[in-house]
């Protein structure tokens, strides 16, 4: 055993001497110094700039920046037009008009009320915790995102920069619990044939009638929201990471920025919808995700297929 070790050591020394001999400019007194010189060179060599972003590829990208560019249509011009003229306006319209539409709904159709006699447990504690641990960062993400979008109205500077940092940190939390939420509810969120019926009657929200609505544990609206907020949320996180770390070429970064904004419209519009439905549209609906219980009548009407399932079991 010992001889093998000595042999290996000798072999190592022989080879390292060979390496020194091959590079006469490097001081040869000892391995340590050699290592330091090489490492020093490395740090000088490393280009901290993203080579895909700055340099040759970037100059090439100039030729296809615009809509009328000689080589190809690039995203630079499109991004400039959309971000410069439309994005913040569209976000403003969404945050004003969507709540306004629901306010009208609230005043015309009104709240759905159900008897709160018998309660059935529909969500476990695990469901509740994961939901809220994903929901809180999600809301924070939307709010800080809006702060950045309307940064000029808020004066920019340290406050908006703070919002940007919070946006980044909240992403980490959302991704962790978003994955758990995705796994926990994916089975219930798969679309079924009866969801089409739900969509045709708009979930019964346009009338005051109490007629059983075709829906499982989640109705078609909730299912849409589930997919937008999980899959959409992950796409938001990925495109955001691209923008944050800048680890791609400029055209990819531009596409990511466009994607991030366009998905942002959908996410914010649906978040407002989700909050309205949970807090205002149905009396006491919020309780189901706070204590896990839902009134029997509410299930029977709004989640009629789920009600049948429970009763069959």
């Amino acid at each position: 055993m010992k001889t093998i070790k000595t042999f290996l050591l000798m072999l190592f020394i022989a080879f390292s001497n060979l390496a020194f001999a091959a590079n006469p400019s490097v001081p040869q007194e000892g391995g340590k110094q050699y290592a330091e010189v090489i490492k020093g060179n490395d740090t000088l060599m490393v280009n901290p700039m993203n080579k895909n972003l700055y340099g040759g590829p970037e100059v090439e990208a100039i030729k296809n920046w615009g809509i009328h560019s000689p080589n190809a249509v690039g995203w630079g011009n499109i991004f400039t037009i959309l971000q410069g003229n439309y994005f913040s306006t569209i976000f403003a319209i969404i945050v004003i008009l969507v709540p306004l539409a629901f306010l009208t709904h609230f005043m015309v159709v009104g709240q759905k009320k159900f008897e709160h006699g018998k309660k059935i447990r529909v969500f476990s504690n695990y469901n509740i915790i994961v939901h809220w641990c994903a929901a809180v960062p999600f809301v924070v993400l939307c709010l800080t995102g809006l702060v950045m979008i309307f940064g000029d109205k808020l004066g920019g500077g340290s406050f908006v920069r703070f919002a940007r940092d919070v946006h980044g940190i909240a992403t980490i939390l959302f991704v962790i619990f978003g994955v758990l939420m995705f796994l926990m509810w994916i089975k219930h969120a798969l679309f079924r044939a009866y969801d089409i019926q739900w969509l045709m009657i708009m979930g019964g929200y346009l009338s005051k009638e109490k007629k059983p609505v075709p829906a499982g544990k989640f109705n078609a609206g909730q299912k849409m929201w589930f997919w937008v907020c999980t899959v959409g949320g992950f796409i938001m996180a990925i495109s955001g990471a691209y923008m944050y770390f800048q680890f791609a070429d400029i055209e990819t970064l531009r596409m990511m920025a466009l994607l991030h904004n366009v998905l942002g419209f959908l996410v914010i519009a649906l978040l407002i919808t989700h909050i309205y439905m949970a807090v205002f549209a149905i009396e006491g609906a919020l309780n189901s995700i706070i204590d896990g219980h839902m009134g029997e009548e509410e299930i029977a009407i709004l989640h009629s297929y789920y009600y049948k399932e429970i009763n069959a079991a």
Partner: protein
Amino acid sequence: MSNTTNILDNFSRIKFYCDTNRCIECHGCDVACKEAHHLPVGVNRRRVVVLNEGQVGKESAVSIACMHCSDAPCAQVCPVDCFYIRADGIVLHDKKTCIGCAYCLYACPFGAPQFPKNGVFESRGSMDKCTFCAGGPEETNSKEEYELYGQNRIAEGKVPMCASMCSTKALLAGSSEEVANIITHRATMRGENIPNAVPNVWKTAYGN
């Protein structure tokens, strides 16, 4: 100052032009810029880029930085509106307002905006770009302006550092009229067709 007034009288804006017939890729301009403004590692306001490297007859080098566009795309997309364009055409921005979102980079055709990494999460600091050596919104020639934006050579009556350092005078900086005159002269001397030699891309790249 009188210079600026002259430029404005001629309705002329400042321009950069890199004569690729002359640029020898010595990196004098980008090093001079980094040195003059004490730019941190990773921030290169000016870059020299070689195209078609090694292909005989096709290789050329070009020095690029902020081109100070008249309809600057960066200024259009900035969510906190921190850009301002001076009367002489220099495009500047306010680092204290900037949030480092990099939208200006996505809009810029020339890759001018630079982002120093700082903080624990490698988050981006305020954007940094070529100022045409004209500082920023802080008081002219103040210590603060120097720290944030580097030397204000325009206020001192000097030519931008990069152009003044250019050994072959490939990199030209000045009013569009002056720059165009020099290029026209050079082309005439070489016996070239003038409309071909004068940077015909200006219209599309800059307007005016």
